[in-house]
């Protein structure tokens, strides 16, 4: 058994297939004058081959993943049809009498270089695209087909890492699961796996030891893989797989139902979104609102700040689309790993302990107020709630609320229509838990952001694989913080939700339910199953679980216990 990180749930049983990274070596060769014509013909053929490939990929991706991913390959096609670049390559072959591969490499590397040097993040990313297209073209010229695409039977993909192009190259109908060394739950391969609804486990250091055709069990739920299982284990997992399929059918029926416990207690089960498009997915998957709308996308991939007007129109759209259901919008949370080049923020030694989120907003008051005004105005069109991130002291909440008041006044003076939305804070710093009673006086709700709360409480770098085991909500230290937050919130008559990854953890659900959590906000893909699981418990049963869990001393004991009592 090899332990990794579960990145997409489900069980797969089948044969492994190792995808090796291929480096393309280009030999630079002089050609004779009489060879020029045939060399250009050869280039033309290679070009056509690459174009045919892209056309096919594009169509496939659009059907499988949706238009957006397909768009990437459309742009790749345009590069191969470029009326300036393609003749330039031919001229290079002609004038310098060199082989087609060398000419392609020279010209396209030049462009890649130009893009990489632009002071715009968007354009820098184009460098990757140009190199990707270049490699495709070279492979066609060298007649080096990328090994493996079609299999006779379904396989489990094993690789160090997978890029978008790599995944596009896979015959996804035949892919049962992904196992990679690199990546996290949010890496490309993980996202891909979830959208294809196949299991994935990442963080498998010993991926190279897995051989082709080796029998493999992938448990995306537990984040483990098992090589060469014996009959007993194999049967156990086959049974588990069968139950899962059964469950999937049952779960389907929860799409339209309201989220309720077995004894009829209404619980809010809502989605986390990162842009306006995600709203549709939340609705589709049966979400009854939005518990976390990350607004960073409005500020990213551009050269300057978004205007109040632009923000307003996005927030308004979200409010209207949710027709009265809550949309909790988190104010700007940049810094840390999310930089905005045009703000020229200084690089910091410890960005996660640095100038970010609310700390930035309270300093850059005008930026903050413009967002607050947009939110106030949009709240006239639906049920918007405002949420401040990374609160660590009372002063911050008071200051933020003061600015909110100012924003209101400014709108009033201009005669703009606005409403009085609920205001809450994220609980993601242990210091905030410690003074939750004081913070509760200033706000209408708490939302526990477990990703950061765990990071700060356990003093563990989220991105450090070596200590990834510490980034877990199952440690008693974390569970107590969560319990305490909910308790204090309720004592002070405010509701408490959760919008970190842990909110969607099926195993943890009974504990959170029993602890009294009022709202669970998770990625859209988890919503449906979560509603089903919730309906299997009564509030009282869950309370018993919570009580017992709080008596356990270690993460392992907590997990074992929760597994034992989880719905089979």
């Amino acid at each position, binding site marked *: 058994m090899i332990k990794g990180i579960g990145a997409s749930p489900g069980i797969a049983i089948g044969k492994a297939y190792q995808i090796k990274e291929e480096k393309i070596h280009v030999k630079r060769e002089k050609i004779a004058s009489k060879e020029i014509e045939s060399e250009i013909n050869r280039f033309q053929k290679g070009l056509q081959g690459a174009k045919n490939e892209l056309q096919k990929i594009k169509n496939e991706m659009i059907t499988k993943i949706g238009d957006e991913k397909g768009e990437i390959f459309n742009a790749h096609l345009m590069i191969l049809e470029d009326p300036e670049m393609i003749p330039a390559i031919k001229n290079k072959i002609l004038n310098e009498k060199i082989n087609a591969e060398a000419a392609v490499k020279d010209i396209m590397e030049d462009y890649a270089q130009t893009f990489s040097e632009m002071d715009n993040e*968007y354009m820098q990313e184009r460098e990757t695209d140009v190199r990707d297209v270049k490699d495709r073209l070279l492979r066609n010229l060298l007649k080096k087909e990328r090994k493996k695409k079609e299999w006779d039977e379904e396989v489990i993909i094993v690789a160090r890492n997978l890029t978008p192009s790599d995944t596009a190259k896979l015959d996804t109908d035949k892919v049962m699961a992904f196992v990679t060394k690199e990546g996290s739950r949010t890496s490309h391969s993980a996202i891909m796996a979830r959208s294809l609804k196949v299991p994935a486990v990442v963080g498998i250091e010993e991926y190279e030891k897995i051989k082709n055709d080796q029998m493999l069990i992938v448990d995306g739920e537990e984040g483990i893989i098992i090589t060469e299982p014996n009959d007993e284990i194999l049967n156990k997992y086959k049974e588990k797989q069968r139950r899962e399929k059964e469950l999937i059918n049952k779960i389907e029926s929860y799409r339209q139902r309201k989220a309720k416990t077995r004894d009829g207690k209404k619980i809010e089960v809502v989605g986390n979104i990162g842009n306006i498009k995600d709203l549709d997915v939340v609705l589709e998957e049966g979400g009854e609102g939005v518990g976390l709308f990350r607004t960073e996308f409005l500020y990213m991939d551009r050269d300057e700040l978004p205007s109040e007007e632009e923000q307003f129109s996005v927030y308004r759209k979200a409010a209207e689309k949710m027709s009265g259901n809550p949309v909790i919008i988190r104010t700007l949370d940049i810094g840390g790993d999310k930089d905005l080049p045009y703000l020229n923020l200084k690089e910091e030694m410890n960005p996660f302990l640095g100038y970010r989120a609310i700390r930035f907003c309270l300093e850059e008051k005008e930026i903050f107020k413009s967002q607050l005004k947009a939110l106030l105005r949009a709240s006239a069109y639906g049920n918007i709630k405002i949420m401040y991130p990374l609160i660590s002291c009372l002063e911050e909440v008071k200051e933020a609320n003061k600015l909110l008041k100012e924003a209101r006044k400014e709108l009033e003076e201009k005669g703009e229509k606005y409403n009085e939305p609920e205001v809450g804070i994220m609980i993601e710093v242990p210091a905030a838990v410690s003074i939750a009673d004081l913070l509760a006086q200033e706000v209408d709700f708490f939302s526990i952001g477990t990703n950061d709360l765990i990071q700060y409480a356990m003093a563990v770098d989220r991105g450090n694989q070596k200590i990834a085991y510490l980034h877990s909500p199952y440690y008693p230290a974390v569970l107590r913080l969560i319990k305490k937050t909910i308790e204090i919130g309720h004592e002070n008559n405010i509701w408490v939700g959760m919008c970190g990854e842990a909110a969607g953890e099926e195993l943890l659900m009974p504990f959170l339910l029993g602890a009294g959590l009022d709202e669970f906000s998770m990625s859209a893909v988890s919503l449906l199953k979560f509603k089903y699981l919730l309906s299997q418990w009564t509030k009282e049963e869950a309370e018993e679980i919570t009580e017992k869990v709080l008596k356990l001393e270690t993460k392992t004991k907590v997990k074992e216990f929760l597994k034992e009592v989880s719905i089979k």
Partner: protein
Amino acid sequence: MTRQKVRVENETGLHARPAAKFVQKASSYDADIRIEIKGQRGNAKSIMQVMSLGIGKGDEIFIEAEGKDEKIAIEELVDFIKKVLPSTENE
């Protein structure tokens, strides 16, 4: 030859997706079409050249066209930059 000045108003300028859309539109005309920014010129039908120009929001560019459909090309492309690109943003 027809030539006209236009200000790029959409947020992401002529980068990436908007660039691709613009190039596709430009490619639908027979006329030769160029864009110019701060003295630098590029073929409007070449995605590589358009992206290399790094045109951002607020930049003023010239579009010029030469060929039998040059008038309509300029008219429609200017309109495309002014109206269509900004309206497709954030969708």
